[in-house]
């Protein structure tokens, strides 16, 4: 708890070349101190966030979330493979992969919201957040560590769960299907992270876990069921500009995911609202950025909300 000390001032020196002024030495030392201070802060933040994330991963494993997520995705994936049959050739693969992608639209957001809804309000209710808040760490770093740890568990669960049906597809249709399946897997993981971020943001807003759970379920209903149907109706009823249609897509991470993955699989016709906009000129890059924004923006909002809330520990 010492006050910051300014570095010792040195006498002006000359190396025989450019004259060195006292002011320039002080400035250089000040810059150097500031840089080393910044590096130290970043290193400390990394260690703190890493420790909290590791604890969150440990909790995810002990609370069986990792097993539940892997089992969920593996079971539903195998179900899709069973009912999709094994039609030969490219068409067969595309149909099966599209079914897997559509499955992810429903299951991944639900799993992410269910796993993330209590990220902040849960520890606040239990008193753990108040213990953490008593440590020399900012609320933003606590939030970052919690979210990072849950993100690792979620992505790990999605990846391991989809690897089983994915492996079967590769063995059946050959290694040429790997890039498409990898795109599907990455997009599903990004979709999961987007909904995890939404869940964390909702978790910072409420005072009780039950409220957070209700808000998470409403978010699932809106993004997965209602928004797509509503957008479809609006597009059918009005002569919307291309920009408006694009905005409708980008306003929903599941729509972004649908357009991205089904476009990559060449199966846009099975994507509901996404089928309408599959030819709207949205590049894969833009869609990937949009999904990344759906991760970043809710997390940034959560970071602000945590600070605005005054204290993340219940008062």
């Amino acid at each position, binding site marked *: *708890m010492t*006050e910051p000390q300014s570095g010792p001032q040195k006498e002006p020196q000359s190396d025989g070349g450019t004259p060195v002024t006292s002011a320039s030495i002080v400035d250089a030392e000040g810059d150097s101190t500031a840089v080393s201070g910044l590096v130290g802060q970043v290193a*400390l933040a990394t*260690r*703190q966030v890493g*420790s*909290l994330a*590791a*604890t969150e991963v*440990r*909790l995810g494993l*002990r*609370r069986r979330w990792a097993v539940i997520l892997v089992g969920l995705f593996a079971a539903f994936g195998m179900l899709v493979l069973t009912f999709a049959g094994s039609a030969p050739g490219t068409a067969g693969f595309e149909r099966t992969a599209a079914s897997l992608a559509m499955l992810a639209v429903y299951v991944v957001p639900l799993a992410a919201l269910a796993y993330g809804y209590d990220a902040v309000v849960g*520890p606040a209710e*239990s*008193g*753990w957040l*108040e*213990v*953490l*808040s*008593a*440590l*020399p*760490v*900012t609320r933003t770093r606590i939030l970052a560590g919690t979210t990072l740890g849950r993100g690792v568990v979620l992505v790990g669960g999605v990846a391991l769960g989809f690897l089983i049906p994915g492996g079967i597809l590769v063995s059946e249709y050959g290694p040429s299907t790997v890039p498409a399946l990898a795109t599907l897997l990455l997009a599903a993981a990004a979709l999961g992270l987007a909904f995890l971020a939404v869940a964390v943001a909702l978790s910072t807003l409420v005072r009780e876990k039950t409220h957070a759970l209700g808000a998470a379920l409403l978010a699932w209903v809106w993004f997965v069921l209602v928004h797509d149907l509503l957008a479809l109706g609006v597009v059918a009823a009005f002569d919307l500009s291309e920009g408006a249609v694009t905005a409708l897509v980008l306003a929903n991470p599941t729509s972004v995911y649908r357009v991205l993955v089904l476009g990559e699989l060449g199966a846009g016709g099975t994507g509901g609202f996404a089928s309408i906009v599959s030819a709207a000129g949205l590049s894969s890059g833009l869609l990937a950025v949009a999904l990344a924004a759906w991760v970043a923006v809710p997390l940034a909002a959560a970071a602000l909300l945590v600070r605005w809330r*005054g*204290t993340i*520990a*219940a008062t």
Partner: protein
Amino acid sequence: MHIETTDVTRTYGDVTALDGLSLSIPSGSTFGLLGTNGAGKTTLFRLLIGHETPDSGTVRIGDTTVSAAGPEIRERVGYLPERAGFPAELTAREVLAVTGRVRDLSDVDSRVASVLDTVGLAGDADRPVEGFSNGMRRRLGLATALLPDPDVLLLDEPTAGLDPLGVVAFHRIVEDVSERTDATVLVCSHALAEVERLCDRVAILNDGQLLAAGELAKLTAGTSGLEETFEAVVTGDGQPGDEQSAAERPEASEAQRPPDTAPAEREEGAP
């Protein structure tokens, strides 16, 4: 480490939680903070650990102004919140290890072992917290506060909800820590007997205002004890007798200046 608040006011909307509080807590003392619900005790704790900032006035720990220090102020402060809780799936050792790592302490493992021994949880170190009694959880909370070997230890309702044996065990640990270390201990409690047992100095708050502060022995002089003193000070009716009123008034006026600081020292510009 010396703690000082100077004319601190903190409001929440229309509610004034602290109203011009000036209080000085000498280094190494065990200080009790008493008051009715809503008196401002927890707000003062939150100001001390930097979770809140005062609307006006200053809060200092040692030479550091808390509101200007950021989270770093908590490096040398151990805080046991009233509602401390822990993930049920973690063991006591894991709870302490993660708090130690977030504090960026060196020798975390040996510190954890030492503090587990101090609070009497060494034998339960590797058990999940879900199997812990309330008393064990409070002792684990105390261990998280003691882990950095703090200069200032803040205990918010430390024995609330504990059975009598748990209270006794907790008191012994706090007394032991107070004797062995130079830490300034600040205890916020509704249990007057607890404050009477643990603390050598006391402050009484009501509606955000400091009513009395000073050495426990002086404050309770001429009364049957702290309970009687507290009632008389808070109700302000002079009950239970004139002796109390006489005993309390000098202390109450003393509260307007740091109670451990002589007037002559203040004239010389002492904090």
